């Protein structure tokens, strides 16, 4: 092996690297905690942990200023594996450390997997309401609905990201092309009469001419809501049908007739459909007597599958979620006394932390007992 390679190897094997990486990770976590005050927890995760470098903006320049979670975590993983391949010798005295380190490796890998594949949605249900979908808290879609048949809707959903990139969409289910003409991640929607100096609207159809859309800065805080808006032109075989303004701030869909069919167009939170339906039978919200301290929330729901048969009734409450069909339903919040908000999470990696933390804890206990036994033996001697 060449001397340079040896040097590199001994760097990756060294405890010095471990300590350096641990110190770097402490600073990273601390900094990310402070930055949450401004950015909110979701943006902080993207900036500090799900990244190779923490990037700060200086004017227009984007400068990487600090190693991010992927880099530190990845190097720790390499360091650990290298140490075990080259430095550690098998022996009973180190059993605990071996198990602990195996757990740490699993934990790091598991966090990576969770970060990549975990999806969360929420489901807002009034008492008596039934839904077979949950909605994304962060992503939206443009839905164009063929509502001709009163019994069912034919929906074409276009993700927000395509609107943002200006991608023209042509679908065999639509007799027209969808051409994005402008997109704002956050905006203020007002009636045109309230904004006297507003520039003329590019929108010509539906609500378009009546509302004024003013782009505003994206809000990253935890409870801050963004109201994305877009202009979309629909172009048929004989030329344009008009330009619509769509936004989740607009509420009800706009309707129009084309090619002998009734259409609806709207922007709404991205939906995730599931092959069963959930009905909220009862929502309960107890408080301690004489106070407004919440004591318990619970949602009694019924799950119905297309196969029919009696629905399954489940009570979801704090610290007692429902795991069903790869999804987990949690009691997250409520609106009025009759509206429950459930959080719906798909995380195929949810078992990783259980196993890895179990291994780490076991390893630490074993190592602790080995040390203790050695200490007691020395003292007796």
């Amino acid at each position, binding site marked *: 092996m060449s001397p340079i390679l040896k040097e590199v190897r001994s760097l990756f094997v*060294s*405890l*010095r690297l*471990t*300590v350096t990486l*641990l*110190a770097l*990770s*402490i600073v990273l*976590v*601390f900094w*990310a*905690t*402070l930055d*949450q*005050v401004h950015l909110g*927890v979701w943006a*902080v*995760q993207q900036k500090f*942990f799900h990244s190779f470098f923490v990037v700060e903006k200086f004017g227009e320049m984007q400068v990487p200023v600090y190693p991010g979670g992927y880099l530190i975590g990845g190097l720790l993983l390499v360091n650990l594996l290298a140490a075990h391949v080259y430095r550690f010798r098998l022996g009973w005295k180190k059993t605990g450390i071996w198990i602990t380190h195996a757990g740490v490796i699993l934990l790091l890998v598991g*966090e990576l997997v*969770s970060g990549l594949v*975990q999806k*969360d949605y929420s489901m807002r249900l009034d008492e008596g309401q039934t839904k077979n979908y949950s909605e994304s808290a962060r992503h939206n879609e443009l839905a164009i609905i063929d509502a001709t048949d009163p019994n069912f809707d034919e929906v074409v959903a276009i993700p927000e990201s395509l609107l943002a990139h200006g991608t023209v969409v042509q679908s065999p289910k639509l007799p027209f092309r969808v051409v994005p003409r402008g997109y704002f991640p956050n905006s203020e929607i007002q009636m045109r009469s309230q904004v006297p100096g507003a520039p003329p609207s590019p929108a010509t159809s539906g609500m378009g001419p009546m509302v004024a859309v003013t782009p505003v800065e994206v809000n990253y805080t*935890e409870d801050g809501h963004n109201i994305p808006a877009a202009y979309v032109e629909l172009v048929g075989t004989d030329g344009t049908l008009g330009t619509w303004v769509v936004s989740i701030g607009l509420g009800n869909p706009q309707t129009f007739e084309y090619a002998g069919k009734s259409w609806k167009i709207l922007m709404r939170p991205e939906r995730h459909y599931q092959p069963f339906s959930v009905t909220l039978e009862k929502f309960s919200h107890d*408080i*301690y*007597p*004489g*106070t407004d*301290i*919440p*004591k*318990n*929330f619970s949602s009694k729901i019924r799950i119905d599958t297309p196969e029919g048969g009696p629905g399954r009734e489940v009570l979801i409450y*704090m*610290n*007692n*979620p429902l795991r069903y069909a790869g999804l*987990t339903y*949690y009691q*997250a919040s409520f609106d009025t006394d009759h509206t429950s908000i459930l*959080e719906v*999470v798909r*995380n195929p990696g*949810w078992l990783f*932390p*259980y196993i890895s*933390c179990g291994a*780490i*804890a076991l390893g*630490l*206990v074993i*190592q*602790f007992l080995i*040390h203790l036994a050695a*200490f007691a033996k020395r*003292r007796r001697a």
Partner: protein
Amino acid sequence: MSKRMPLFVVALAAVCFLLGLYPGWVRQPKAVTEFGRIPVLADGRFKPLDSVARSTLLLIQGNQDVTTPDNVDLTPDEWLLDVLFVPEKADTYQVFYIDNPDLLSLVGKGEANLKIHYLSFKELEPHLAEIESQEKLAEPVEAQARTRFQSSVVQLYGNLSHYIRIRRTILPEGSTDFLGELLHIQETLADGIEAVRAKEAGKPHDEAKAAALIDEGQKFVNMAESTDILAIPPDEGDPDPNTWHNAGHALLETFGKGEVNPAVLAYAGMGFAWRKHDTASFEHIVGLYQASLDRRYAKQAQKARVETIFNAAEPFYAGMWIYLGAFLFAAVSWIKWPEPARLSAWGLVALGWLIATGGIITRMWLEGRPPVTNLYSSAIFIGWGSVGLCLILEATFKNAIGTAAAGMVGFATLIIAQHLALAGDTLEMMRAVLDSNFWLATHVVVVTTGYASTFLAGALAIIYVLRGVLTRTLDKDTADALARMVYGIVCFATLFSFVGTALGGIWADQSWGRFWGWDPKENGALIIVIWNALILHARWGGMVRQRGLICLAIFGNIVTSWSWFGTNMLGIGLHSYGFTAAAFWWLSAFVVSQLALIALANLPLEKWRSFRSAQ
């Protein structure tokens, strides 16, 4: 020094503590004590009036003793009796603590005398409108962003409304003979109801009688809206024994039932007797009312009785001074009388720890919860856990280091707890999201033990530095032993802080669907785990030796205090409970002091008194 010294010292401390438990020692009439243990439903739980009195006093004036303008000392129960039944007198007691100069000048006490900090309700009353309008301006500002004046005015406004609501527990505004009023209503009720019915039906009626009754009804509505203390038990035979009412609410039922609620009458009777200084009648009525509650609410009455004794015994306050004594004896043992002083210190630590254990168990029984439920109880439990570990250290090493550390950590954590108790009732109810005894018993207890042991390692390291730099008592054996202790405790801390944090992740996965959410408190705990791991790896890799280990352990104090208090100050995330503005100052001061100790540890060895003499 005699060999009997340790025994004598510990016995003396124990006797002092036990005297506090002896009822005959209490400086108030027995009937007042009996009054104090009447249970009411407040803040969502049954508690004795004694606890209402004490937590209110702690909240508004910062301590539990009241001195009247005539220089009479009142116990909390006597103060509460005056507030409830002789409000015009209680309003002159100076119990509202204000330390902000701007706020003092707002209430007219700015220029004249800067030494005045305690004001009476009567003195504040003319300024209520100004206080309210300033509060309305300050309240929308987030707690962390408020100026000192803004936080003070919000706090004062809250304290004043709290006081007014307590004052309205039984008596309506301005009433001086409430018993007389109630008896009068009882007598004229039938006629009055008839008059009102006739009036509503548009028939001829006695207008005066109807008006009087409607007046009373309006008074009761006002009462029902102006207090949150549910002092009146449900009627006998009520299927739901938890539907307690406030006095106004119970009185409103008079018209439907045709009789005045007997519990309200009992309270009015107590008030009458208390106003008249008629001790015999007061004792009699309190006794009768207690007996009826004892019969119907045996469990609540028993808990109220125990809580009253617990309040009077103040085990954590007593423990605080015992720990301080232990620390002093331990320090003395390094200079003079090594064995007797060391054993005295050990005995005191054990006594303090037993008292704290009793206190924690009592709290758990009262609350029906695991030991740690809020910031206050975490301070007590951190102290308890550290001192417990110290007792083991001392039993193993027998060099008074364990007891010195125990005294230091025990005293510090209990002082912190004393200050946290100023925020109100420390046995508060758990919010829905935290309402899980299983996770409180596992995650919270284990992670708090992790905090406790990290602090303990830091405390041992501080002893190393101070003894080494300032005294000549740190010989090589002691230094090595101390370093070994620090290393052992860091190992222990790594285990507990990791397991505790992981259990927290599992709880989060069970409740919110994510194992790890990068919440500030979670991050704080994670930093403690990584810091402990860093210390261990730095030592294994030979990057630090004895003094380096000591410095890292002291820095652990900063890391832990950040996680314990600092993260709550950000005002975000799921754990942002218990923010106090004053805490920020103290946390900064603590961090600076720890950095100073680390700087001290880095003095060249020839400047250390111990090592200089060794060379």
